[in-house]
């Protein structure tokens, strides 16, 4: 019998079978834990998303609502639709800037430069700081009246800005904070990727008469594609789920202009006691993340193969 892709032959020898036994022992605890704390909860959430549930009544008594929660979210929940738009903007702005800035600064640090370690440490500091602490710091720094940014702006004779309290600036300011927080992480990732490109490739390019730009375009970029893929995909998945930062700065205000999907989920679940609707929201977000991830992987991978 030929072994299928998912079911290899059970080995006949006792030695191999003992080995197999140990393999099961090794995977048992982690897999059970993942089933209990990931797979099971996902199914349960899916089930709840088809009901109305206030989290207080017994699970068995949830009234059945079919797809009503999904329909409501996609057609009538204006906050959700607003939050989706904001979250997309947040992800596009954050991922775009972090990719460009991360790569740019990594290129700078990869060139002949003094004190590479010190620079890296400085840029990396926000990465290890709790988002909640950064939220508190930046709420003060961007304060309309006492914030240091406005102190500088007005000292320069420019008009004071509302930043986090302005309906047209709150989301932008949050994007800025997110860039600030994570750019150091992507610099380090890109730098590692750059350092993994063998010098021979550049030497060969130089022999072919390629300049700096051409070397970047035809050697660095193609070889960096896997790293790029990693950066774009992980950053997008993270950005689409932003919570701590918004929770502790604007809370979605003013007028939901900085409301994000996960914050709205949190409010729907714990402020409005609508667990079913919050679960449906989580699944819609899940579908969106899947779709975007698959698209990104396709796009960046295919082009990697073409080159």
């Amino acid at each position, binding site marked *: 019998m030929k072994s299928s892709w998912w079911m290899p032959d059970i080995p006949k020898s006792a030695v191999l079978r003992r080995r197999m036994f140990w393999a099961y022992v*090794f*995977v048992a605890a982690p897999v059970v834990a993942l089933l209990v704390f*990931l797979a099971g909860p996902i199914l349960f*959430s899916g089930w709840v998303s088809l009901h109305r549930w206030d989290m207080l009544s017994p699970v068995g008594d949830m009234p059945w609502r079919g797809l009503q929660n999904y329909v409501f979210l996609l057609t009538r929940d204006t906050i959700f639709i607003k939050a989706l738009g904001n979250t997309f903007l947040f992800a596009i702005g954050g991922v775009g800037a972090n990719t460009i800035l991360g790569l740019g600064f990594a290129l*700078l640090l990869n060139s002949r430069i003094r004190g590479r370690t010190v620079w890296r440490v400085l840029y990396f500091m926000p990465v290890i700081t709790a988002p909640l602490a950064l939220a508190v710091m930046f709420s003060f720094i961007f304060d309309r009246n006492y914030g240091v940014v406005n102190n500088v702006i007005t000292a320069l004779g420019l008009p004071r800005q509302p930043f986090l309290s302005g309906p047209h600036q709150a989301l932008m300011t949050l994007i800025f904070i997110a860039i600030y927080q994570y750019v150091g*992480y992507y610099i380090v*990732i890109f730098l590692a990727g750059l350092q993994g490109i063998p010098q021979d490739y550049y030497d060969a390019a130089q022999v072919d008469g390629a300049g700096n*730009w051409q070397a970047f375009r035809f050697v660095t970029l193609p070889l960096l594609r896997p790293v790029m893929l990693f950066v774009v995909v992980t950053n997008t998945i993270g950005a689409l789920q932003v919570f701590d930062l918004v929770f502790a700065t604007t809370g979605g205000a003013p007028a939901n202009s900085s409301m994000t999907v996960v914050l709205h989920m949190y409010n729907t679940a714990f402020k409005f006691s609508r667990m079913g609707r919050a679960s449906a929201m989580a699944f819609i977000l899940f579908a969106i993340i899947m779709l975007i*991830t698959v698209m990104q992987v396709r796009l960046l991978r295919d082009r990697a193969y073409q080159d």
Partner: protein
Amino acid sequence: MSKDEHSLPQSAARALKYLVLAGGAFLMVFPFVWMMIASVMTAGEIQMRPPVWLPAQPQFDNYSELARSIPIGRLYFNSLFTSGIIVLGVLLSSSLAGFAFAKYRFPGRELLFYLILATMMIPFFVTLIPVFFIVRQLGWIDTYQGLVVPGLASAYGIFLMRQFMVTVPDELLDAARIDGASEPMIYWRIVIPLVKPALATLGTFTFIGAWNNFLWPLLVLNSRELFTLPLGINSLRSLYADNTNLLMAGTAVAVVPMLLLFVFLQRYFIKGIALTGLKG
């Protein structure tokens, strides 16, 4: 184009490079510096018009006042203790499972591995409430166990460890078997030492995540005695809504020791992080 660049005086290009780096670094460091400065101002100085940039007299009393109103030591202990256990758990569970997926053939291997890969993309919020219920069924709400146990296994960790362990040569394992080593001994004596850098990576990653985690502790903990640092900062937000100087002092106390630790261990931190981009 490249010609133009070469024609620029080398020193000017270099100066520009350092200028950009320094400008960026200033932006990175300034918020922390400003937090420290504001933390030793008086409430009046923070609201002064025109603004003041330095306190007339540093108010270190702000910190003693802070120490009187929040249990800083307790918050640190809780954060360290729970993050530490989560790191140990993730390292152990991920390396065991990763080892099995990388080096053994057993029925269901591919299926399980793809399942684990699939769960990596799930938004944490999908599982948040059900996990809360499971933890409640176990009677672990408002306990260290409730905070820690759901984080002990990581799909990402298993994936990462498998990627690293695949590169360990089979010959090494077979040689050990011939010498009479049992499978757990092979794991512990041969494989683990070989993947230490990967463990460091995963450990760093997990630690930062656990240390900064906010939403799960917010849900699962009620007692202030169990609060972790992010929850402490969150309480400060309402406690010192009108006292920005004290709020900054509190945030500094929560943030600065971690930054110092990072500066000392930066080599390991950054090496570890850098690896994820290559193997992930």
